[in-house]
Structures are given as C-alpha cells and as structure tokens.
C-alpha cells in the first residue's frame, strides 16, 4: 500500500508543482511595482552581502577633521558627527537589517511550521496548549515582549561562563548583539507562523487527497510533510513577505532605542537615533537612513502583494 503512494504521487508532483510556480512567476511579472521592489531588494541584498568589499570606507573609521561634511566626491552621502562615511554606514546598515530579517525568518519557519503542522493535523492537547500560549502572548504588545526578552538576553548572555550556551555568547559578541535580537524576535515570532500554518492545515485536513493518502495507509508524518506541507507553501511564502519587514522594523526600533545592535556597528535604527541629536542643523543625517529604511520596507510590501496575487489567483478574482 505504502509503495503505491510513494510510487504514484511524488513522481508526478514535481512537474505539476513546477508548472504552478511558472504560472505564478508570469503573474508576478505583471505587477510593475512588485518587479521594481524585487529589483531594489536584490540590490540591497547584494550590497548587504558584499558590504565589507564594496563600502568605500570602514564603517567606524572616524575623521574628526571632516565631521558633518556635506555630500562630496570623497563622501557621496557626507559624513556624520564623528566624520564617519554615511554611505558606508548605510551599506553596513543594510547588512544588519537583511541578516536580522532573513535569519529570524528562517528560525521562525523552522520552529513554527512543524509546530503548526503537528497542532493542526493531530489536534488534541498539544493543539490546545499551543493556542493558549498564543492567546496569552497576543495579550501583550509584540514589541514590549521583544524589548523584555532583548533586555534579558543582552544582560544574560555576557554572564554565561560555561555550559551549552557558550557558543551563543560568542556568537552574540561577534555579531555585536545581532544574535540577541534574532533570538528575542524568533522566540515570539514562531507563534504567528504556527498559528497560520495550523489554520491552513485544519482547512486541508478533511480534503479528499488527505483522506485518500490516509486510506492508502500513509503515516501521519508522511501526510504532514509530503501532502500538507506543499499545499501550505504558498501561504507560508506570502506570510514571509509580511514577517521580514516586521522583523526589520523591530530591529531598527530596538537599535533606535539603544537596545539593539551594539555601536559602532551601524543599524539604520541607530543612525536615525544618532541623527536626531543634530536634526535641527543636519536633518540629512536622519533623512538618509529613514528613507533607505522606508524604501526597503515599501519594496518588501510590493513584493509581498505581487506574490500574494501570483500564488493565490482565487483571491485576485474576487
């Protein structure tokens, strides 16, 4: 029996899947703003990945003889209060934002998807427990919880002297506090993923293809990973485009408050906070990171909308 499922379904599915995603790609290309956003994001990602090689200056190189210098051939975006090159700092800021966004997303999916699949498919006590946790966490503003967790991790990690968490302490030190942010964001963020995946799975559970697989003798694990997961992929991808900007907003917010990335590593949030001190005389120091952050978030939003329409054509027709 089980050989039937394994021989029948997976052999045909890849081709059909491919066609589905090809159609989605064609629909995505019709959204002009989504394409523009995708191109912009690709640029930001490229700069983020190659920051150490492409920045004209080192991000914390101070030049106290040319502080607050305006945009020039030497400093394309001018310098800040310590004479640091703003363009280089913006590029490194992209690296911080993107790494927080992407790593947190991966962690959150790695925890949330299996949890949501299990809770939705098996139900029972585990499902009930998960939903109670979601209820409680939703009673507290997301950012407030993140601030509490972040405060905890920043104070706690440096005190780790031995044991299984030493690598985390080293990681946090080497990443100038990014690890603590990612940890705080993921510890709460996965609940969102689990909740949405669970909802989708509960909708799919009574469908014929699941019943068919079960009657053919497929095990729970096989049904969850081979039959349910491919069907919740589209909502997961759409959700990812909503989650990444949320994580980026949270990171920049924490850094803005002085709780996030440790200076001198620049985050767009830190740069806005530093710029506020001199906003009356040098507003461009605030405007530059604010605009870059806003443009990145807008692009993510457009790409998200494009993906939603591309992957969920039913909703589009309504």
């Amino acid at each position, binding site marked *: 029996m089980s050989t039937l499922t394994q021989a029948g379904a997976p052999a045909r599915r890849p081709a059909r899947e491919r066609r589905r995603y090809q159609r989605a790609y064609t629909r995505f290309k019709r959204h002009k703003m989504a394409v523009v956003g995708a191109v912009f994001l690709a640029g930001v990602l490229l700069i983020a990945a190659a920051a150490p090689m492409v920045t004209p200056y080192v991000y914390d190189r101070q030049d106290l003889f040319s502080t607050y210098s305006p945009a020039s051939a030497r400093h394309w975006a001018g310098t800040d209060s310590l004479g640091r090159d703003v363009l280089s700092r913006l590029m490194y800021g992209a690296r911080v934002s993107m790494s927080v966004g992407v790593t947190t997303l991966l962690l959150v999916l790695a925890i949330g998807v299996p949890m949501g699949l299990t809770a939705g498919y098996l139900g029972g006590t585990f499902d009930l427990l998960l939903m109670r946790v979601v209820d409680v966490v939703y009673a507290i*503003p997301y950012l407030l919880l993140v601030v509490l967790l972040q*405060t905890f991790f920043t104070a706690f990690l440096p005190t780790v002297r031995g044991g299984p968490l030493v690598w985390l302490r080293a990681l946090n030190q080497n990443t100038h506090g990014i690890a603590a942010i990612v940890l705080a964001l993921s510890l709460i963020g996965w609940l969102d993923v689990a909740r949405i995946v669970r909802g989708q799975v509960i909708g799919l559970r009574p469908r014929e293809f699941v019943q068919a697989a079960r009657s053919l003798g497929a095990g729970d694990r096989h049904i969850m990973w081979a039959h349910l997961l491919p069907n919740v992929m589209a909502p997961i991808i759409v959700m990812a485009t909503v989650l990444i900007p949320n994580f980026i907003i949270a990171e920049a*917010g924490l850094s803005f*408050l002085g709780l996030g990335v440790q200076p001198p590593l620049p985050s767009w949030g830190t740069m806005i906070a530093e710029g506020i001190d001199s906003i009356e005389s040098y*507003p461009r120091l605030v405007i530059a990171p*604010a605009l870059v*952050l806003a443009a990145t978030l807008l692009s993510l939003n457009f790409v998200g909308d494009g993906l939603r329409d591309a992957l969920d054509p039913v909703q589009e027709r309504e």
Partner: protein
Amino acid sequence: MGAYLVRRLLLAVPTMAVVYTAAFLLVHATPGGPWDNAEKPLAPQVIENIRLKYHLNDPLWKQYLLYLNDALHGSLGPSYVNRARDVSEIIADFFPVSIQLGVIAMLFAIAVGIPLGTLAAVYRNTAIDYAAIGVVVTGISIPNYVMATILVTTLAVWLHWLPTGGWAGIWDIRIIIPMVAIGFRPATTLARYLRTSLLEVLGQDYIRTARAKGLAKRKVVIRHALRNALVPIATISGILVADVITGSFFVETITRVPGIGRYFVTATTGRDYPVLLALALLFAVIIITMNILVDLSYAVLDPQVRYA
C-alpha cells in the same frame, strides 16, 4: 450580558496570571541592575545592602508572592533608579500625559481612517481608491519612528511651522506631530479593514433595496452600509491600542513628550527592572480590558450577537 461579562473577567484572570508569571520570571532572570557600573563599581557592602532592601536575597517564590500581594494592593514597588519614588507614583505622574496623547492619536486615527476606508470602498477601482491604497501602503510600511523623524524634519526644521518637540497639554500645537506619528499607522490599518468590510456590505441585497427605494447614495452608505461594516472593524481595536502603546515608546522619545512610553525606554536602557515589570503588567491590563470592551461592544453594534 452580565453573566458574559463575569465570565470574560474570570477568563482574564488566568491570562493575567500567566502574563505576570512570565514577566516576573523574565525580569528576575535578567542579571544585574542599574548599580552594575563597570567604570564606577559600588562597594560590595553597598550592593549587599541594596539587595537586602529590595528583598533580592529572598527565595524567588517569596519575592513572587510579595510582589503579587503588593501589586494587587496597588503598590508596584520602588524604582531602582529613582530611589525616592514608588513605581505607582511614577505611573501616576507620567501616565496621564500618555493617555491624553494616546486618546487624541486614536481619535485622529478614527477621523482619518474611517473616511479614507469609506472613500476607497465607495469609489472602488478609481483614482480615489488607488490614492487611498497608496496612503495605506505607506502607513503599513513606514514605522512610526521614521514617520516622526520625517514630520519633525519637514514641519519643524524646514518649514518652522511647529516646534521640534515638547508637551503643553492637548490644546497646544506641539501635540500635532506626535499625534500624527502615533495615529497614522492605526488610521491606515482601520482604512484597510474598513474598505474590505464595506465592499462586502455594499454588495448585499439590502443595500440594493435601499437604493431602489430612492435613498440618496450618501445616505445609504452612511446609514445602512457603514453601520454594518463597522461591526467587524471592532475586532482590530486591540491591534490599534497595541500600536498606540508601542508607538508611544518611540514617538514620545523623539518628540520629547514626558509620557510613560518615554519613561519605559529610559527604564530599559537604565536597567530599572521593577519599572519594566510594572509597565509590562500595566500595558497587558490595558490590552486585555480593551479586548473585553470590544467583545461587549458587539452586543451593542450587532443585534445578531447574543451572549448567553
């Protein structure tokens, strides 16, 4: 309705208990305090005295019960940083400003969000709709701290129309920037949900009937459609309140409003953990109360909802 209210209040108790336990454990697990200063370390005896004063040497369960007992009696313990004052006093000082600003920002959100969502739905797929969607997308993508800095730069620094910050009550022009910065995102959230909800209602038969009997379009939209479309909108009030609370952290800091949000930020960077714990509990109480009020308001707005 009375029985329902009692049940909701009883259900809020375990939620609050879990919130308290989680926040308490988290705050107490966080090592150190404001007296841990690497450059100017205090004498060990001084630290010991501080720990004794705040019962930090007691077993955790004792501290847990002690604080719970105090909190239930309205005393939220002393602040680590501001030694002379109780956290309850600090809240009494700073919270009213935040409530005023929060309510005004909420009114701004409603005053902008409802017309925006209504216009977008009524003039669906026209230039008006697209402009409204553009505003909504901006609201979703731009965090309030970016909004606040952009407003301060343009309105205060470049145009000199408004001061860059400060607070002098709700009748002073200084409230404009924080009000818009906090209220803009809730306004767009409101508009987005209202547009969807209104589009659904406008397709209903009774709307066609109302039009068919000769009512003016404006009257149909306001009296018949909007009233029904607003019911599902009430569900998102919880999100809006949370948005206003977290918005106050950033916006009060940027525009130098002496509210509880700004104090919260000072407390986190100053490692004033009792204040952190107390404010976390305060915010949770506000959100939970708000959610209960929202559910009760259903009964008023929607006659189909009956609470047994």
